[in-house]
């Protein structure tokens, strides 16, 4: 039977640092004996669990999905899965760009939900509050569009870093 490689990644607001990757390939190939997972960042380095010396994560074939706690902020990644044979020859490979933005989305929701406290804000702060909130949302959507239209993890990461700066300095912006 032919084999069409494919996978998907997801992230949840409850565990924003964790990436869940699921193999959704169709078909089978008896020559496949192992699978590898690569998380390439915008700066050209690979994201791996702390202590790992290799730039990929071994993903056992018996597991249809794998969960890795790797992120500390919104991050744009070029995710690659390789399917290899017993000689470590890459038989199949697929790469997809993803924007993992659960940190920013959760923070943005927190602004609306009143979880980010503002004590007796002056009128001027109220004005800036919404201007800054719109900017924050704009950066989130810009990052998503850089991924959607161009698979451009470099520009998406710039947008995420702008959001992260607002999160880090939230007492100034919000």
């Amino acid at each position: 039977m032919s084999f069409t490689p494919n996978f998907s990644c997801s992230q949840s607001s409850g565990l924003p640092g964790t990436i869940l990757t699921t193999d959704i390939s169709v078909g089978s190939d008896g020559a496949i004996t192992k699978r590898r997972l690569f998380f390439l960042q915008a700066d050209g380095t690979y994201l791996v669990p702390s202590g790992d010396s290799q730039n990929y994560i071994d993903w056992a074939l018996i597991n249809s999905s794998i969960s890795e706690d790797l992120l500390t902020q919104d991050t744009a990644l070029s995710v690659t899965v390789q399917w290899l044979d017993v000689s470590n020859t890459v038989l199949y490979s697929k790469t997809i760009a993803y924007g993992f933005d659960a940190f920013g989305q959760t923070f943005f929701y927190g602004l609306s939900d009143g979880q980010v406290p503002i004590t007796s804000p002056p009128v001027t702060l109220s004005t800036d509050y919404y201007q800054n909130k719109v900017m924050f949302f704009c950066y989130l959507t810009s990052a998503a569009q850089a991924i959607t239209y161009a698979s451009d993890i470099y520009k998406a990461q710039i947008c995420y870093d702008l959001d992260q700066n607002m999160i880090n300095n939230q007492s100034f912006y919000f």
Partner: protein
Amino acid sequence: MSTPATTYALDQISQYEWTVDNAKRNAFNNGAMNINNGRDVILMVEGYALNYGINENLAGIQGVTNDVYRLCGAMLQTANQVLTGGTGGGIVPPSGGGGSLIYFPINIVVSSGDISGTYTITNPDWKGLTQLSPSCLLDDTPQTLNTQYTYNIVSGTFDFSLITFQPQVGTMFSTFGFKNA
């Protein structure tokens, strides 16, 4: 003038291009504002309105389209390139150093009922690679560029319509060599 749908796509691309451009400008000017600060926000808001107008087929859509097109401003050319030519450089095939050949393994799946000369294969990672090795291996058989197959560098598509043999049902493993510019 582009269609409303195309203009919406140009708006979406221009938005993130302006976000990145403004961030760089601000970084190099000690945070000083420039005339385009906030243009990304304007594009986000107006793009939302345009998309609603498209979906609801509202009157006056051409006027909104023209306005959004104008707002894309200096990012229009880049947005057009991204929209028609593929990625903006976020995923770049490894250079291999000095323009040396880079080999990509590909798999061509032939299903029952497929006939010779009807199939193509496309990969966005191949877009923009400017030179090909003179031939490729297909099912262990050397194939010659522009004789047995053609390659569209803009779309990253191989077209095997020139091949005359009947492929076997199954997966054929192959390797193509590319050169970066």
